[in-house]
């Protein structure tokens, strides 16, 4: 592959990224304002779920598989 061809393929990726409707939000404040984080209620649900998995062993006790 020649150098020119490499430039052309790189250009194709750059052209794809230059879309008028593509907007990048890098400001953490604006990130929060747009509600792009998991809500507290779901975080609590995840904690509860993870705790139930953590304690599964206690509930199984000496169950035998045979």
């Amino acid at each position, binding site marked *: 592959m020649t150098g020119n061809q490499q430039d052309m393929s790189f250009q194709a*990726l750059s052209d*794809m*990224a230059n*879309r008028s*409707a*593509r*907007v*990048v*939000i*890098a400001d*953490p404040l604006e*990130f929060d304002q*747009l*509600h*792009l*984080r*998991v*809500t507290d209620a*779901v*975080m609590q*649900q*995840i*904690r*509860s*779920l*993870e705790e*139930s*998995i953590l*304690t*599964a*062993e206690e*509930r*199984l006790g*000496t*169950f*035998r*598989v*045979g």
Partner: protein
Amino acid sequence: MKVSATIHKPQDDTEWQQLWLSLNYGRSNPLLFSMLDRARKLGCVSILEEGAYIDRDFSAAYASFYALLFKPLSKYCRRLHLFSCDATPAFAGSDPAVIANAVQGLSTHYLGDIVLRPLPHAPVSSARLSSSHLLAPERQEVTVKSKYAVHAFGAEFNLEAMPLAQQDTRTGACAQATMWMAGRHFHTRHAAPWFSMPDITEVALNPTDSGITRSLPAGSEYLTPDNMVRALRAMGRHPVTYAPDVLVNGVLTWQNVRPRDVIMRYVDSGIPVILGLQQTGTSIGHGVVAVGVERTDARDLATLPSAPTTGEFVTHLLVNDDQRGSYCRMPVNAIDRTSEYPFCLETDIKFLLVPLPEKVFITAETAELVGRDLLKQVAANRVTLAARSLGPGSTWDVDASFYDLILHDVCMARTYLTYGWKYKARMLRNQCAEHLRKELLSTQFPKYVWVTEFGLADELKHLDPCARQIRAHTVVDASGSRFWESTLIVDAPGLTVFWQFDPANFSVTPAAVIEAAPVASPYWTKIRGQADYSTCAVPAAA
């Protein structure tokens, strides 16, 4: 060593019965009967019996146990090759090359193999029955499978299967059999280490505990979940245990998760799920491996629960049961219980053991909760997000009815684990929005991602996977955590958000790339075993 070949062609019930008994020294064995009966129902016409055959698994059991007994026992096995045609003509003639080619010609009729060891109480050392040959192929799918090459008489037979092994209750019980099946699948498909049944028993009992001293040899009749977890860890897996989480009227009940949904998520990811089952009135449980599903397209959509999953369409799990055979139909709901299979998920499930690969640090349930929550956030703020993309004063209103269903937890979800590169490869070839595909092309993904697809139940109920359509999906980093942003993509109708980390900037908060489009249309779901959607595309009119 001399090899012999015998071809059996049973014609009726009596001859099949005689064959079944004669293959096991005149003694009945329900598993062997079940496997031969299944082969017969799938059109098996002839069985090529190959002997003597040196089986690596039985050699391991022989070396660790049977060679040490007073009773003399051969180490040689026999292997049965099942064909849906008459194999006799292939062996006609005297030219070895012609015979080898003729045997190779039987490959399109190959239904699988069964290795028989010289143990009449437990004759099936291992078996691989073709997962492409199912009793109800339009409704059933074996999702946990790998490719096997079987060699005999100068020919190679290729098939996809989920292997099965029978406990001998000397070197292992059904608990070890479930881990053997899962382990052999990981070995064949993902190059994981090879473990024999005695190998598994050894790592399950290390460190030992008093619980396993109630049987001789130790561990031969049962294991506890602790023993199983030890073995799976030693086999390179990272098991996660699920069990009922609350006591209701003295009965342990599943509250945080629905077992069917959990099993569906992992089995749909190609991960075998070990099920610990126990019927009322019994003291010892039984272990089987969920390897596939049977669906219905007749589910009453008016009675779906909140936040439903595509598990609602699953009526039966296909399980490998070391006592009953490959791809057995285990009903999900008690109402579907029949005499065909003694266990039922709804009434008999005691625990689930999911042997995850390494680098998966969040469960499917967490990924689905995160995906559903962020999709709802995007739905609730979609006008603001679209305006941020298209500019102030723009008008944007896409698929409002679907967004309304998202906000009310009515949309159906399907969550599965996949390689990041596979997700990207499939999605680039899908019918999804062009801006999504352009962004994907220059996006790097972690090794594993959790993908959650969202759609309308009415558009996902079809038995034909090409007819199923989705309208949104989310992608979550499987090595992520609830302690930091782990979402990678939320793709909703006409609106996509990417969470992107800049390798030159170690900011706690990633950048969000937002892009809106004025229109949107449904696109295909992931189809297992398909790298693209060429089989679904309608050819352009000539």
